[in-house]
């Protein structure tokens, strides 16, 4: 009995220290980053693409645009392929084959991001440069690399969501004469919707936060991309590229870049969560 209490206390402490770590990081980046945003002014910081820290220009608009463009591209690729795989593995595929394919896709998550970046630079970038034009380092290259990187997250969570749909839904739909495909997209996908949104959110979090692979294939200029063949700089690569040298205001501006990233991720997650709850409720009422 006494031991029980002691152990639960220890576990509580461990859990709290993990959470306090998160709180400390949040407080720290805001403390380091906010002052310079206030000093430079929100307009010059968020709505200007003029980034030249040594001359006192700290505009990060092009990087915000870059991060959003690359993440959107990655989500298109990740969702199309991830959902496709999840539907095939849960609806149209013999259980034995699914048992081999699912772990194989999850294995993708174990490959270090620098390897993805290297593969991108060596194979993907020359292909894009030769056949589509532009420098090769581009929104497209980053989106493809990130799309593959988010695949395991999107796939495995979507599979779990689809498998969690009660069996009678499927049986009922088939009994009503629906084909397998009709059942899959009209019943199963709808019933698993909130799980699929979760998959998308987690995938998006991974894509927007990824750094190493993106630095290698994105090109990192300071201009807003106009086409998917243009190179981009993302918020994360801006921090990682210049971190080693930064001091003083420049360092604060990099923390402010981190604050921006933090807020963007929070907003995206909240929007996605609220949207999924609302859908789920409406779906339930129908």
């Amino acid at each position, binding site marked *: 009995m006494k031991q029980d209490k002691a152990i639960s206390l220890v576990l509580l402490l461990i859990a709290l220290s993990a959470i306090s770590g998160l709180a400390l990081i949040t407080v720290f980046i805001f403390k380091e980053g906010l002052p310079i945003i206030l000093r430079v002014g929100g307009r010059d910081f968020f709505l200007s693409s003029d980034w030249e*820290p*040594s001359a006192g220009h700290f505009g990060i608009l092009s990087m915000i645009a870059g991060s959003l463009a690359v993440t959107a591209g990655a989500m298109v690729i990740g969702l199309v392929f991830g959902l496709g795989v999840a539907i095939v593995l849960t609806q149209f595929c013999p259980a034995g084959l699914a048992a081999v394919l699912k772990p194989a896709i999850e294995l993708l998550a174990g490959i270090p991001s620098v390897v993805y970046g290297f593969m991108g630079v060596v194979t993907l970038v020359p292909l894009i440069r030769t056949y589509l034009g532009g420098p090769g*380092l581009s929104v497209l290259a980053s989106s493809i690399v990130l799309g593959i990187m988010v695949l395991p997250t999107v796939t495995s969570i979507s599979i779990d969501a689809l498998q969690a749909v009660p069996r009678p839904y499927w049986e009922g739909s088939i009994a009503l004469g629906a084909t397998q495909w009709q059942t899959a997209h009209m019943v199963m996908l709808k019933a698993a919707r909130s799980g699929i949104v979760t998959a998308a959110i987690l995938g998006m979090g991974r894509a927007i936060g990824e750094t190493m692979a993106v*630095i290698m294939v994105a090109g990192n*200029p300071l201009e807003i991309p106009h086409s998917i063949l243009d190179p981009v*700089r993302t918020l994360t690569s801006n921090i990682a*590229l210049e971190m080693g*040298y*930064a*001091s003083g205001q420049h360092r604060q501006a990099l923390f402010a870049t981190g604050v921006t990233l933090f807020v963007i991720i929070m907003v995206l997650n909240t929007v996605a969560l609220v949207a999924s709850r609302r859908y789920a409720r409406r779906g339930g009422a129908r």
Partner: protein
Amino acid sequence: MVRGMLRLLAYGTAAAWVLLGGGCGRDAARAVSVVGSTSIQPFAEFLAEEYDKKNPGQRVEVQGGGSTAGLQATANGLADIGTCSRALKPDEAEQFTQTLIARDGVAIVVNPTNPVNGLTSEQLRGLFSGRIRNWREVGGRDGPVRPITREEGSGTRESFVNLIMGKERISRAALTQESNGAVKELVKGDPAAVGYMSLGLVGEELKAVSVDGVTPTAENVLAGTYKLARPFLFVTKGPARPDAQRFIDFVLSPEGQKILETEGLVRAR
């Protein structure tokens, strides 16, 4: 019984940590750490290897991070020697003791398939600021120009900006790469690219063009005719630690200078 084993395990782990910690501490006290410029890093690593061979038991550890990062690490006492591939700014020169270990040219590199063999400073300013957008304007084939630059704070970038760009800014559209190696990789694959990098690291796969009619060679850097040259510095905070000073002396010795010369740099004196 179980509890006894657990206790044993705990003591064992604690003892191992103490031993490991002690070991690391002693090692750190002995190894000379050299931190800074990614341009100097490969040369410093080579020198450190030779030094270790000559003086068994005296380890020199070399890390990159960039010139400015190297200066900061030295100022904070995290590094014994900082390496810097640009001239020190006035306030930095006051703070540190500097030793010139070699000089290096900054080479302007293009893809080997590019027919352009020489550029003037004025043309370089145009190419990198984005005013010149087509290779035809500087005597090349018809096609876009893709300037490749280094990140803010890089010693190579600062040297290039000081020696060529002057007041003009590098175009925002320029691709930014975080090391000499990445610039090299990109220029090697892209016929439209133009970049700048350490002359000693150019190798066979890229074409280094002449600047204002002077070919970028070690002789021309030493003679002072190739104007895109910069110092490679070792900096210390005050007088160097005895073992760090021994390494610096080795680098400045005829033997060390010979190594740097064979590796493509220009000797200090």
